[in-house]
């Protein structure tokens, strides 16, 4: 008995030592000059790049709450990689994608990351605010550049975040400007803003407060949690407050509840939602008939957009993935790839495709053109969103992806003057 216990103890000790060694090994690999080598074409490389391939990671969600959106984003990433490889690759190397599925669970992502990290140069898609928060320090420590599928301007203090498109605060500012321009909102009005407690909701609220301040409007705030589902009473309260528009920084389910109440209570005001508030699956829910008042502001065009590049991506998606759900994720995934393409090309020109070289290349880009899949991107000002423009889409059951574009990418004057939380100057 004693012997066995001792054996157990020494096994534990051995395991502990082994894991310490592994951890030490992991820690010492990042940014070590000894790892860098001059590869084909005299380009300096360290991780994830060989003479023939560039490997990028995807940390997506194809099994959790965002599985429909996540699958479409992954597909968009893949369509981009296929296009690049068909055209001969970048820097004489083909793009390979290493995909992991964290199911929107931060703890799962935390265990998957160390397996993925040694194989990749950077991350073409990192889905989910909680996952991003959990991996924030890892990205910094390993100098891994990541494009998040999450759009809060509160994360722009992390230099390893390569924001694709604009942020939630600017989505709201532009969206409210659109409603006002369409005569659906007037100076001095009272608007309601229902938002999820946390980074996502807080960032959206910054937008409505800024816009309201500029136009003498009053914002009636209603803070909820991500697990709340019934917003009927909150909308009843907003009706009593005399709101003429409602802003939502919520989950799709909450959006449905707010819109169902908006209609049932006879309020029928226009509702503006941040890009994650809508999911085409809502058109199959009992609230389907009430969604008509919803306007969605997003950096990328909706699936049904006639923007030439978006239409081409949609066509390629339907051919490559017949029967797969149609949503805005495809464009999001494709444009993430396009921005990476610009960064990789620049890094190749600089002769440095190390992780540090990627950072240098990124911050030197001032006008990334994505063929209007998002507005023109400028990565030269740390802390500032790289673009400020949005598309506006309106719910339309007849349109593929459930929404139809009502305004092509634009930037309102209020969005130009807005100062993001970590913006310098």
């Amino acid at each position, binding site marked *: 008995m004693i012997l066995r216990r001792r054996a157990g103890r020494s096994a534990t000790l051995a395991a502990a030592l082994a894991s310490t060694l592994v951890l030490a090994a992991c820690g010492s690999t990042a940014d070590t000059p000894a790892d860098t080598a001059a590869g084909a074409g005299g380009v300096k490389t360290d991780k994830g790049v060989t003479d023939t391939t560039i490997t990028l990671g995807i940390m997506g969600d194809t099994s*959790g709450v965002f599985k429909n959106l996540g699958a479409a984003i992954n597909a968009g990433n893949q369509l981009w990689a296929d296009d690049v490889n068909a055209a001969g690759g970048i820097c004489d190397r083909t793009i390979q994608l290493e995909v992991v599925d964290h199911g929107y669970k931060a703890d799962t992502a935390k265990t998957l990351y160390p397996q993925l990290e040694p194989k990749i140069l950077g991350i073409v898609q990192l889905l989910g605010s909680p996952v991003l928060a959990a991996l924030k320090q890892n990205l910094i420590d390993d100098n891994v550049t990541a494009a998040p599928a999450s759009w809060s301007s509160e994360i722009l203090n992390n230099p390893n975040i390569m924001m694709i498109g604009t942020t939630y605060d600017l989505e709201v500012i532009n969206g409210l400007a659109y409603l006002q321009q369409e005569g659906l909102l007037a100076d001095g009005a009272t608007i309601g803003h229902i938002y999820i407690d946390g980074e996502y909701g807080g960032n959206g609220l910054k937008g409505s407060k800024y816009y309201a301040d500029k136009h003498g409007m009053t914002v009636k705030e*209603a803070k909820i949690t991500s697990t709340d589902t019934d917003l009927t009473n909150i909308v009843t309260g*907003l009706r009593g407050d005399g709101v003429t528009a409602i802003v939502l920084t919520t989950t799709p389910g909450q959006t449905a509840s707010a819109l169902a109440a908006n209609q049932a209570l006879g309020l029928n005001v226009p509702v503006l939602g941040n890009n994650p508030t809508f999911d085409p699956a809502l058109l199959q829910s009992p609230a389907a008939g009430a969604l008509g008042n919803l306007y969605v502001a997003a950096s990328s065009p909706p699936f049904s957009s006639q923007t030439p590049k978006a239409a081409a991506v949609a066509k390629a998606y339907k051919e490559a993935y017949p029967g797969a759900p149609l949503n805005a994720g495809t464009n999001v995934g494709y444009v993430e790839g396009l921005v990476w393409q610009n960064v990789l090309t620049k890094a190749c020109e600089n002769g440095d495709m190390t992780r540090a070289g990627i950072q240098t290349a990124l911050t030197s880009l001032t006008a990334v053109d994505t063929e209007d899949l998002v507005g023109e991107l400028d990565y030269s000002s740390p802390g500032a969103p790289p673009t400020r423009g949005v598309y506006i889409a309106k719910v339309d059951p007849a349109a593929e992806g459930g929404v139809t574009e009502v305004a092509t990418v634009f930037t309102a004057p209020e969005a130009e003057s807005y100062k993001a939380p970590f913006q310098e100057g």
Partner: protein
Amino acid sequence: MDLATFVQLFVNGLGKGAVYALLALGFVIIFKATEVVNFAHGSLVLVGGYVVYALKDTLGWPAAALVGIVSAALAGLILERGLLANARSADHNSLALLTIGVDVIITEEIVRRVGADIPFIGDPYDSQPIQLAGVTIFRTQAIALVVGAVLITAFFLAFRFSNWGVAMRAQAENKEAAALMGIRSSRVTATAWLVAGALAGVAVLFMATQDFSGAGLGRGTHAIALIAFPAAILGGLDSTAGAIVGGLIVGVTEALTSANVDFLPFLGPEFSKSAVFLVMLVVLVIRPSGLFGTKELSRV
């Protein structure tokens, strides 16, 4: 808060309260018969809902709903016969803990089966509001109120006049004396679980709707079932009338506090969850056995 808002919130709350009352009544019936607090009530709700979801496309909604109610009732019965009846001599608190374990197992399995579907199961009445004198009445809640009133009345009549009702009241009053009078405790207890399960099966038909919860069947449904706990406790855990009043109080409190209130800025959506428990605490401080609960008397 203007009058129209107040009336609308009150109506919203009343409809929800009817469902909370059905759930709370389930807790109370079991507690009265066995003195066990059934923490697995939420999972009985899910069993009923899951069966409806699984069958409504093939059997049609009415038949699926019926099978769902029967399944929830049977699940209650199986739980009692299979687990609790075998541990009759165990302490009531241990049995309550046992129900927590059962609850976790059933809930996780059903959540896994439902997956990311989160199905709505109120097909015939969901999202069809009725406008009445400037007030919006959600059809789901209106039907819940009527069904709740009918079932609760039927229950009270049965409780008062049927042999089972008399036997159960006798057992609740004094278990030993009831047994000596020839009342079969096992039958009374089993029936109590059966009835509580059926009530849970009825309640879920209203819970997993756009009108009531804004969410389909899933973890959220289970969470709502637990809101019925404060309803049962503030009404008095052993009082059937208290369960009804408690349910309505919880529904209305939740509705009135979840809207923004200008003159009390600390109130609002964030406060509504604590408000229900705050009301429960206030009631318990003034009346430790709940509004209608029996006072615990012990001779010293």
